[in-house]
């Protein structure tokens, strides 16, 4: 039941390449101009997405953004109003869920209470025609239980299992069928924080081990960032940006993405001048910030300048070559590895600065009320569309 994962098993911060990123690989699933209306409500608006075999893709967005609708169209529970859903190249818009090589882990697991753990897991195998021999079903069920580390729980009843165990059963019930796509609808929402962390790691491990394409729906950016090969950011039924976590973090398409993936400080203003890839943005009181414009901007356009808190440094005295902004410290939160400062500039207003412990040891610590200078590299500021 294990497919050979074509993807890299190592995910390093620096040299990470998404699996199957080679241009030749054909997508395992695709959304082409998919729109879904529920009466007046536009739940999905012109979705376009290629899903690569073996990748771990997340739909990320707030509730009501259309991510669950997208998942349900892949599963077959919803039929697109227009556009095409393709699986393995074939259009499956109206193909019933039970005919799709796709399985889902439901938000509240939807385990069958009248069946044992083993019967739940074997359910999908028993629906196959011709029906596999009993021994084969048993073997696969046992193997799936091993994968989710629930060996020996075969005869248990669902209500005898804890929330985390139920989650594993739901996962085993899906993966045992070796689906082309494994859809996970907020699978960790009902778990407590600690269990959620464990499950995230375990899910990742299982995904790598089995090489099944995982599609996760979540509203938890941390979850999406830590687990996914690629993230599809959604808003109001539309895909805002799709990319690897790093890409979304470093090159957000707009202010919404930058705010959703990690945290950032935003300074709103209008473009006053362009110089190659760099734009100058007038904030207020004659203050002009410079930043890289990832997308083309025009003079006079209303934009936000985004600077990540960790890209700002606080210094007692500004050195030359850097733009420095005099700020006063309003608040200080010690986070262990980092310290988070809330600072205030007369014209720019309040913003966040994240200082590594290392820097604190040499320069700091800074105390509330202290007058300092905030500095950042000109290249780390991004000029983003306000939407």
């Amino acid at each position, binding site marked *: 039941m294990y497919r050979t994962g074509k993807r890299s098993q190592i995910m390093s911060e620096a040299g990470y390449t998404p699996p199957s990123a080679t241009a030749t690989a054909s997508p395992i699933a695709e959304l082409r101009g998919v729109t879904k209306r529920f009466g007046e409500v536009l739940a999905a608006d012109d979705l376009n997405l290629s899903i690569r075999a073996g990748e771990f893709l997340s739909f990320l967005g707030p509730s009501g953004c259309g991510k669950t609708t997208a998942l349900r169209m892949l*599963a*077959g529970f919803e039929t697109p109003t227009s556009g095409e859903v393709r699986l393995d190249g074939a259009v499956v818009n109206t193909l019933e869920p*039970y005919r799709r090589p796709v399985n889902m882990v439901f938000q*509240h697991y*939807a*385990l069958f209470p009248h069946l044992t753990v083993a019967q739940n897991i074997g*359910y999908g195998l028993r629906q196959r025609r011709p029906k596999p021999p009993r021994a084969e079903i048993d073997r696969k069920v046992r193997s799936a239980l091993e994968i989710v580390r629930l060996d020996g729980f075969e005869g248990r*009843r*669902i209500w005898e299992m804890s929330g985390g165990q139920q989650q594993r059963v739901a996962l085993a019930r899906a993966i045992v*069928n070796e689906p082309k796509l494994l859809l996970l609808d907020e699978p960790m929402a009902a778990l407590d924080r600690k269990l959620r962390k464990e499950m995230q790691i375990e899910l990742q491990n299982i995904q790598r081990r089995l090489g099944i394409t995982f599609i996760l729906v979540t509203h938890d950016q941390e979850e999406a960032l830590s687990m996914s090969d690629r993230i599809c950011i959604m808003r109001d039924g539309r895909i805002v940006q799709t990319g690897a976590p790093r890409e979304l973090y470093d090159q957000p398409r707009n202010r919404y993405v930058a705010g959703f993936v990690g945290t950032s400080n935003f300074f709103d203003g209008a473009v006053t001048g362009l110089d190659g890839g760099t734009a100058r943005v007038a904030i207020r009181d004659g203050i002009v910030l410079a930043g890289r414009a990832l997308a083309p901007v025009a003079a006079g356009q209303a934009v936000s300048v985004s600077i990540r808190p960790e890209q700002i440094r606080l210094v007692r005295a500004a050195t030359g070559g850097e733009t420095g902004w005099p700020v006063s410290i309003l608040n200080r939160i010690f986070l262990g590895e980092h310290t988070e400062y809330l600072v205030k500039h007369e014209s720019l207003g309040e913003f966040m600065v994240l200082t590594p412990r290392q820097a604190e040891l040499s320069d700091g610590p800074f105390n509330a009320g202290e007058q300092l200078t905030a500095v950042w590299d000109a290249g780390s500021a991004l000029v983003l569309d306000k939407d």
Partner: protein
Amino acid sequence: MTERGRNIFLLAPAGAWFLVMLVIPLAVVLIFSFGERGPAGGYVPAFTLEQYANLPARWAAFKNTLILAPAGTLASLLIAYPLAYYLAVRADARWKTVLLVLVIVPFWTSILIRSYAWIFLLGGRGIPALLAMIGIEDVRLINTPFAVLIGIVYGYLPLMVFPIFVNLDRLDKRLLEASSDLGASPWRTFLQVTLPMSLPGIATGCLLVFILLMGEFLIPAILGGGKVFFVGNALVDLFLQSRNWAFGSAVAATLVVLMLGSVTAYMRLIRRLGAQREDVALM
């Protein structure tokens, strides 16, 4: 007050009710069943097993009841289940309440009035006349066991529909999606998820209808033309016409024993079916 004392205090009204409404009447019936008929009817104290020895004289009534009560229960189930299923699973939420009320509406009218409608429908000018129009001549429906069965199903349908409806309505529809997602066709989903999950409703509905049918007398009297005789009819006759209270009590006591026996057997069966499932209490 001690906890024990409080419990006794709280249970007293129910206990008194139980005693007055159930235990005492049953005891009276039991005592009467060993007595004799008075010269002008009624009851004369005695101790004799004569009444029980005479039970075979009502064999046909017992036979009819023991055949038609389960048959009526089964027929009600077969018709009620799809109806309840439609109401709970398929019907548009906006119409659900209206449709439910429509199921109850007949209950606002006496079963007697409703059964009278069937006299016409099953009589010579009703369905048989329609059948004659398409060439099926001389079909007699009224005053047959079949007519009684129709009346039973018609009369007791809501009692069967409701428990099943409530059960199916509460069924987590995501389980059906999960089943479909795992490759089960709608029919197999029904067999493997919906049906087993609705067993408690079926069990309740069947029990309700069966118990009431065991004591039924009105529908056989009206639609059976006095020819399809239930134990209930025998009792009506014995108490109100021939006024043989002693024999009537013996018949009634026997009916109670039969009912207890079959209900116990039924509960056992249900409990065995539900032995491994505490997700839903079957009874």
